[in-house]
């Protein structure tokens, strides 16, 4: 049984991410945790200014959250019935990140899937503030961000972008490997060449990666004479890849790629799902 966390604000984007996930896991026995966090201006559990229980606004928010989740589960069960899928409604009066952290502690969550708005212009808009926060602050679980306009749910190819500069732990790629095997998807490891070719340690890391991903349909690719974001963009756009994946390194590569306004109109960054893998804490 796999545990998957689906934060939702009942928006179109969140709904699309749920549908994508149901499809991705259609052959797997899963427990889906549908999480909604609600707050009323300034008050939440644990805050020093505790609203009096029975506070009208709070009760209302709580009811909205709980009823919303129940309705959501009903709609899923009716529209997308799958005997392998179970749903659990989780309603929290916490800020979103705390609510997520709480669930990660309580349950052995495999992945968090969140919705994003897709290509609409400014990056703050593509990746709503919640999405950015989650990707920025949650460090203990892989995160899959699904744009609302993702054209196909079927996946055939995941691109794993790597500089080979960091020696990773096998566990860092555990989720990616499981996903690829489970969906019978090939992984294309993409490296953007720098002057001078691979160093000895980069070569070692590349071999290590190859051994970690043994058993998966795997191919290695490199592009030269392009910057990292442009190279990745060209690669996925040229091949029509279905998902792009990174191991998260704070304030680097990944951020440059996703959050640099310069690249906001590079189509596919916001059209295909992005899988953020988290390095195991050393």
């Amino acid at each position, binding site marked *: 049984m796999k545990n998957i966390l689906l934060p939702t604000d009942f928006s179109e984007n969140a709904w699309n991410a749920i549908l994508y996930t149901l499809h991705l896991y259609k052959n797997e026995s899963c427990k889906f945790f549908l999480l909604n966090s609600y707050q009323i201006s300034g008050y939440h559990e644990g805050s020093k200014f505790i609203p009096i229980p029975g506070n009208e606004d709070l009760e209302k928010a709580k009811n909205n959250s709980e009823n919303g989740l129940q309705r959501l589960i009903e709609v899923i069960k009716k529209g997308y019935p799958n005997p392998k899928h179970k749903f659990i409604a989780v309603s929290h009066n916490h800020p979103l990140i705390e609510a997520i952290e709480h669930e990660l502690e309580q349950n052995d969550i495999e992945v968090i899937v969140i919705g994003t708005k897709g290509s609409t212009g400014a990056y703050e808009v593509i990746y709503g503030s919640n999405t950015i926060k989650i990707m920025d602050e949650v460090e203990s679980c892989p995160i899959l961000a699904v744009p609302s306009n993702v054209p196909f749910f079927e996946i055939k190819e995941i691109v794993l972008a790597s500089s080979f500069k960091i020696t990773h732990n096998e566990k860092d790629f555990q989720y990616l490997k499981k996903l690829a095997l489970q969906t019978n998807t090939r992984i294309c490891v993409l490296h953007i060449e720098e002057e001078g070719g691979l160093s000895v340690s980069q070569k070692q890391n590349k071999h290590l990666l190859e051994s970690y991903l043994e058993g998966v349909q795997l191919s290695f*690719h490199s*592009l030269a004479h392009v910057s990292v974001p442009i190279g990745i963009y*060209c690669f996925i756009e*040229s091949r029509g890849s279905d998902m792009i994946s990174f191991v998260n390194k704070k304030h680097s590569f990944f951020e440059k790629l996703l959050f640099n306004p310069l690249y906001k109109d590079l189509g596919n960054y916001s059209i295909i799902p992005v899988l953020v893998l988290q390095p195991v804490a050393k």
Partner: protein
Amino acid sequence: MKNKILIPTDFSENSWNALDYALNLFKEDKCTFYLLNAFQLYHFTTDSLILPEPGEPEYEKAREESEIGLEKFIDGIAMKSDNSNHRFEMISTYNSVMDAIKEVISTKDISLIIMGTKGETNAANIIFGSNAVKIMEKIQHCPVLVVPEQVVFPVEKKREIVFATDFKTDYNYKELESLISIAKRIKAPVRILHILENERLTREQEENKEVLREYLKEVVSTFHTLTHIKVGAGVHSFIESRGSEMLALIHKKHNVLNSIFSKSLVHQVGYTPKVPVLTMHELIE
């Protein structure tokens, strides 16, 4: 359609490889291959004032070397392949390579030139052999397929031709004929790649694109766009990313071909063509 293929050769490994590629490309077709060797004498060129005369020992020696070379070449082919569709003719001529090619094109009604190239050389700047680039640029009336030395003919499932174009040409079926016939012959889909310079296509470009779509109806084709990248690097990245097997371009002055092969850009991007390049020429009214 009669296939008359011109293969200029200097008997090198490269030209042998180009021939091998050509034989595979036209495996199923009735085809005449004209093997051309142009010889020149050390001191003389066709323009020099003192012309060596046929009959002079120096001239006769060079001619003999050329003819023997061609015969050996043909013997080599006979050992490799016995395709009854294929005929071979030798042309040994005293001329510069360029002029010899021009002459054969006009007298033999050649439909395609296939030639080898060294690809990378030791000199940092020279990417395609200078002969190859000159021929791609200067021969106006016949498409040229240049095959880098390390290229082997691909297995069927990997075949795919990238046609890089800016939609700024008034396409004409005749210009595209060599591309279409190769695509059909090797059952390769055509990936039409446009490197977008501005936000969107102009109306004229949109119209040209539609015309192109119409012309390419006979083959499987898809349209692709890359942006935020220079033409040379974009084409290169596209081909590398997909593992495509051939690049096709229309040559007109100051267009894609120039920017890919001009030394400055080559220098900047370090573009080395690793796949055969088919150059078609804009037909000038």
